[in-house]
């Protein structure tokens, strides 16, 4: 079977999953089955097939699994958001349509994606500006102590979601040029290999940017995600573990410094370490979120309460799971689908990551390799940061769960990311012989 036919076939079970999910919610809500779930399933399948045809006509040899995997993620998101709030789900569905259009546009407009390499500094600048935008008075917005949102008239969006793609494009282009020099010019000092100082400059800028985000944007999660993506790229480009070690050390040092001096970061760490402390749980910006997240997961157990079974609000309308549609959506999924469902979701993410790295391995040129690696790594790290936050592996910070959380910016940015991966996959698989 050709790659495209495999893709088309794989979209069917994804649509059935969505149909079954909606059916389950309708039964839960009204004790009866409605054919609306079939309609939703058909519409979803229609959209997927439309996306499929875009790929079929423009990138015939692209990876056949990525798009169906993303549709499974989207199905998780739509079903769970519908269960939380049906108006939000309708908006989310609209965002998916817009996302698909943007996906198609990216593929068509960036047929020759190597032009990105040429505009690396422009893109880097744009990325940094995007990251700064939330702190611009008048349009910037603060939520839970972090500056992540921007509101321009009626349009609100989260620039960090787009910023991550810009930064990765820049790093991939920059490292493709300098990777040889970084390796050859490096010196050993005290048993550790240090990169040459001359080329270290831009890399220090990235470190500085991460630290800056930690303090200025006040977002530990995003800075972890960016810096992690940067280290992953640095490692793949130079194959020097010592560079990664130095980078990690510097990040840890900076994070420790800010954790002990900046009140906002300090509170985040405290709530992470002692989520059930009575003084912290009721404090504004305290540990209520993480504590409720863990309670919700404990409530889910192995198999979960079933879709619609999670208790989101108390009798007086007080929220039991804050931000259930965005930051804590993983807790809702674990609550309702249990450990089994949560592991299933993580497995789908891992498969996406595996396909992303496969594309990087097959790619013929360094830029594509680095770009595919970087985009995949940052995608995986985003999942780790939010799921790790929700499960108390690391302090909880607000980033979205790609393709699952509610939010237009997240969906649009991740569709661009998907388009870029598929763009690189097409020539790679054609040259390498379809696999």
């Amino acid at each position: 079977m050709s790659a495209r036919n495999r893709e088309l076939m794989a979209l069917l079970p994804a649509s059935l999953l969505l149909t079954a999910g909606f059916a389950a919610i309708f039964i839960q809500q009204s004790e009866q089955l409605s054919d609306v779930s079939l309609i939703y399933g058909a519409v979803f399948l229609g959209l997927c097939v439309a996306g499929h045809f875009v790929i079929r006509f423009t990138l015939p040899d692209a990876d056949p699994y990525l798009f169906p995997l993303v549709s499974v993620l989207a199905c998780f998101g739509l079903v769970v958001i519908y269960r939380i709030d049906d108006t939000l789900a309708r908006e989310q569905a609209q965002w998916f349509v817009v996302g698909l259009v943007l996906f198609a546009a990216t593929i068509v407009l960036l047929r020759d994606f190597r032009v990105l390499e040429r505009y690396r500094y422009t893109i880097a600048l744009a990325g940094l500006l995007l990251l700064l935008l939330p702190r611009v008075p008048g349009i910037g917005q603060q939520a839970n102590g972090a500056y992540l949102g921007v509101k321009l008239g009626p349009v609100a969006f989260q620039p960090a979601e787009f910023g991550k793609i810009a930064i990765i494009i820049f790093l991939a282009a920059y490292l493709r040029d300098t990777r040889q020099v970084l390796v050859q010019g490096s010196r050993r000092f005290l048993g550790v290999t240090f990169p040459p100082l001359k080329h270290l400059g831009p890399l220090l800028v990235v470190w500085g940017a991460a630290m800056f985000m930690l303090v200025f944007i006040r977002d530990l999660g995003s800075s972890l995600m960016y810096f992690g993506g940067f280290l992953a790229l640095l490692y793949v480009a130079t194959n020097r573990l010592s560079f990664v070690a130095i980078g990690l050390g510097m990040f840890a040092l900076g994070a420790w410094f800010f954790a002990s001096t900046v009140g906002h970061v300090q509170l985040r760490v405290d709530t992470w370490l002692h989520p059930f402390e009575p003084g912290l749980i009721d404090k504004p910006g305290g540990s209520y979120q993480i504590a409720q997240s863990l309670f919700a997961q404990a409530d889910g157990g192995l198999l979960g309460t079933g879709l619609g079974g999670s208790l989101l609000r108390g009798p007086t309308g007080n929220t039991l799971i804050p931000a259930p549609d965005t930051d804590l959506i993983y807790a809702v999924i674990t609550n309702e689908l249990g450990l089994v469902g949560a592991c299933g979701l993580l497995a789908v993410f891992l498969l996406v990551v595996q396909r992303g790295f496969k594309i990087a391995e097959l790619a013929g040129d360094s830029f594509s390799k680095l770009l595919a690696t970087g985009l995949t790594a940052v995608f995986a790290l985003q999942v780790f940061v939010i799921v790790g936050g929700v499960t108390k592996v690391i302090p909880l910070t607000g980033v979205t769960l790609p393709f699952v959380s509610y939010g237009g910016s997240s969906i649009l940015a991740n569709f661009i990311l998907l388009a870029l991966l598929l763009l690189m996959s097409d020539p790679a698989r054609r040259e390498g012989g379809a696999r």
Partner: protein
Amino acid sequence: MNVSITRLFVVLLLMFGILVGFTSWWTVFGAEKLRANPENRRILLAEQLIKRGVIRADNGEVLAGSRPLPQERFGRRYPTGPLFAHAVGCTSLDRGRSGLEDFYNDALTGRRTDAIGALDSLLGPSKIGDDLRTTLSSRAQQVATDAIGARPEKAAVVAMELDSGAVKVMAAKPSFDSNAEDCGANLNLATQARFPPGSTMKTVTAAAALDSGRYQPGSRVSGENGKVISGAPLNNFGDESFGDIDLTFALTNSVNTVWAEVGEKLGKETMAEYMTKFGFYADPPMDYPDDQMIPSGVKKERERLVPATSDQVDIGRVAIGQGDLEVTPLQMASVAQTIGNGGVRMQPRLVAKVLDPDGRTIDEPLPEEAERVMSGESAQKLGDMMRNVVKEGTGTAAALEGVSVAGKTGTAEINLQGLNEAWFIGFSGRFAVAVVIDRVQGGTGGTLAAPIAKSVLESLGE
């Protein structure tokens, strides 16, 4: 670069492994602790959506039922109010749960732990819980409550079926109204409070004496007043002095100096052995929350129990229920039940049956033996001695027309002016009973506690 990409993938794989590990911890392995966290109101709120099962007395009288609240939620009502409050307990959003409402919460909310039940719950959480049929007797509980209610002091009564350990009465004063909001704030004097047992402890000493083979009911010991026990002279009740008397006579007339000497001669090891067999020094194996039961034993400063073999223990005085020995009424009821049941201590049971909402029996636990404390022969001899107490000794007020009652009174002087703990423990054909009245001014176990025991045994059909 492909090698490093693979390595990077492995690192991310491990990171996702951590996520799976943590999720498994919160959802499965560490979930119990999270559910029990006092900040976690999720479980209680969710349970409000479930129609909790009904708790009934042994004759079917409703002790706890559900009442509808707005928004498809359910509240709890306790038609019998304070009467069964300690046993049934309550469930409240703010104060958590207590009593049977706590111990049988899984059943009452319909959470099944067996395989088929778990399969059922996949089809959606159950909305109706299972019912409980308790062993408690409505009539006897009422009689016991009225009897202790007629007195001004605090008091407790526990009655059990001899051969099954089924608890028929668990009454404690003060009680509380489960319907009120301050649920769970009250101590259950029957299981959570310790009193000096006084002479009722002589039954345990007698069991050790007979069953160890060192003494017979006819063995003679001097009952002289003022005998030196552990270096200090010990007096009999009313400073009465006896010559060499046999153990039956010494139990019938509750002669302190005889039993203290027997305890000393048996030694700490033997006394400790029989106390442990009777269930001292351990939470009673009853279907009741652990945090609402305390063990009995020798209590030194604060609430700490020291073993009977400890150097700090004056075993001669412990043998007559003094020397800092403190016991719960439930423990003493267990002692009486053991002797009446031929030496076999049964696990006390509050619930006879668990029934599903359609009335089908899901679980009907068989009576369970806790331990054989002494031989049937020893129990028979001790029973005869105790029957003599009721026939012609200190416990005549417990005598029932046409039924032979065995028993032992206790009047423990506490170190306050003229205040006593008045005790009676005993058994007749089918039931054992323990009664304690706390800090009575003037009056003994024989005059105050024995009549209550009699009326409770009577109400149980003896």
